[in-house]
């Protein structure tokens, strides 16, 4: 029984860390990988989704619908920001970092002014289960399932749909795609919208487990960037294996020596990976294939 408990516990902790890394990073990875834009307002899209989810629950929607609502809202906001700000800066990646950082400052301070320093959350649903002497939260299993579902869905969208093909064409050869009649502007807008909606989904699904404050997005940022940097530009070849690798590092170090060790481990892992694989895991896998 002891042994079973230990196995379940390790798997649960690994899954929990994996889900957090994947969900934190996927929105950022889509926007960075597909468009080359480093979106420093990523955390604020997460916050936006979380706030919208809580508002929707307060209006009487059931939680799953509210999360969808939060995700869609963040996606819409993302498309508006793409149209107003990011679109003008596609050829100037450094400027787009600065601009999205400005957007993030405006968003978190604006939220503080509009909705105050904190808001009451919605409470974590579903309760808990016990294995041996330990008890676990069911909702955390939902988070793990969501992370896997998001990866699967992204894979389907970008490989099996017309939009996905057009999007990849636009990314690889924008002028050629344009010449063949693809409305590249619209593709960019949708891709940015998908990235923002994924961030919103993360915010919405983590909202019941966290404190609702205007700066809540920043608690995802470190993990998001670490995962994207280790993973490299491709969501499937990069983000997913990077999240798995980092989850092992984080979960094992945290259970051994506590949270501080987990954080140090994450950052050390990034330094090592960057030193050995400058293009991340994506670069490693693609080189092997070639």
């Amino acid at each position: 029984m002891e042994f079973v408990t230990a196995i379940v516990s390790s798997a649960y902790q690994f899954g929990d860390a994996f889900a957090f890394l994947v969900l934190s990073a996927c929105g950022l990875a889509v926007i960075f990988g597909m468009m080359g834009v480093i979106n420093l307002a990523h955390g604020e899209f997460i916050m936006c989704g979380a706030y919208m989810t809580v508002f929707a629950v307060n209006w009487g929607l059931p939680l799953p619908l509210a999360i969808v609502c939060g995700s869609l809202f963040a996606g819409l906001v993302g498309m508006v920001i793409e149209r107003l700000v990011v679109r003008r800066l596609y050829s100037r990646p450094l400027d787009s970092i600065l601009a999205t950082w400005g957007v993030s400052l405006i968003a978190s301070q604006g939220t503080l002014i509009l909705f105050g320093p904190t808001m009451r959350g919605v409470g974590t649903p579903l309760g808990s289960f016990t294995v041996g002497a330990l008890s676990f939260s069911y909702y955390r299993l939902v988070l793990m399932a969501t992370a896997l579902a998001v990866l699967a869905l992204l894979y389907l969208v970008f490989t099996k749909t017309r939009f996905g093909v057009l999007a990849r064409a636009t990314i690889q050869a924008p002028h050629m795609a344009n010449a063949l009649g693809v409305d590249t502007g619209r593709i960019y807008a949708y891709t940015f919208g998908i990235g923002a909606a994924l961030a919103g989904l993360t915010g919405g699904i983590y909202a019941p487990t966290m404190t609702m404050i205007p700066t809540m997005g920043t608690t995802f940022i470190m993990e998001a960037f670490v995962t994207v940097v280790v993973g490299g530009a491709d969501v499937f070849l990069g983000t997913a294996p990077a999240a798995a690798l980092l989850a092992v590092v984080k979960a094992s170090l945290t259970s051994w020596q506590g949270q501080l060790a987990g954080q140090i481990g994450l950052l050390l892992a990034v330094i090592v990976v960057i030193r050995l694989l400058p293009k991340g895991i994506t670069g490693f896998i693609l080189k092997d294939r070639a």
Partner: protein
Amino acid sequence: MTVRLLQATMLTCAFALSGAAHAADPIKIGVLEDQSGDFAAATIGKVHAIELAAEEINNAGGIAGRPIELVVYDTQSDNNRYQEFMRRVLQRDKVDVVFAGFSSASREAYRPIVNQFDGLAFYNNQYEGGVCDANMIVTGAVPEQQFSTLIPWMMETYGKRVYTIAADYNFGQISAEWVRDIVKESGGEMVGEEFIPLGVSQFSQTIQNIQTAKPDFVVTLLVGAAQASYYEQAASANLGLPMASSVNVGQGYEHKRFTPPSLANMYVTTNYIEEVDTPASKAFLEKFHAKYPNEPYVNQEAANSYIAMNLYKQMVERAGGSTKRDDLRAELAKGDVCFDGPSGNVCLDPKSQHMSHTIFLAKVGDDHAISFPKVWEDIKPYWLGDAGCDLTQADPDEQYTPSNPPTKQ
């Protein structure tokens, strides 16, 4: 002739005006608090409390006949901002006194600057104790007031196995040291201790570490809104252990922000929260809500800031209207600078320049209602004085801890 007369009249007027202006020269009070960033939820109320006190004092004729002028900066939960704005209020704005700081990291960031310009600062926050500095007056509660009461009570009620999770900076580390010492003195056992970096919001593994160690209760010294996510996550994993804290509820009103029963069975020692059921507390709360109807919660730090304003007024008036630090400290040294405020009667201790408190043990119920199983009257901030800090004799500008006490002569 008429021109001369006119000039003479104007001159006289100008003299009269400048004279009047001099008599009513405002007393400038710098206010450096976090109105945005990770700590904002707990500290916006402090600024409001200071504004409330300033308005009351001004309406009643000011301090020694001089109105209060507040110079308020938002320090954004950022230690660099504290240093920048502390220089600005002392050098450029030339304020008479500064009310500053939430986190202990921010206090230690600005304290050398207050020393450098020989200013006077009020720190109106509960903290880990030990600051022995004549330039500082501390109105917040300290460990001998919060832990010497709380930990033995918890051990008697729930048992002797204790697990501490604390924010990983000077506040959490030193507070955890206090808890460790008190647990040991009372014959208990520390079954675990974990320090959490600020800004961490995911606690699954920590929760499991706690379950594996099987404590009787958990001491939660978590700081900032991100770390407050712990309670929700612990509740959803059905950890179900009683919690003891010196910072929760009284600062971040977590019992109002989270869905019941995630904070059930949390015990906090605090010198004020808005649920305190005394006439003075109710009157204070009513005044507060009259000025700020949308204030989400009136916390311990808001009350301490309000008290500090009134203590400052009293010291200046007793010093004959002087705002010089030495004149004020001469009054403080008499040991009878007291104020009967929202949290009951409090007095400043001349040796440490800290404040005595009535300590309320607040218990959070299953529905997040607050009850007070115990009240300790008039607990003095005795540790610094007993350990050898005496600001009436010497000013070491140091922060001491139980493992690093003052060197006795």
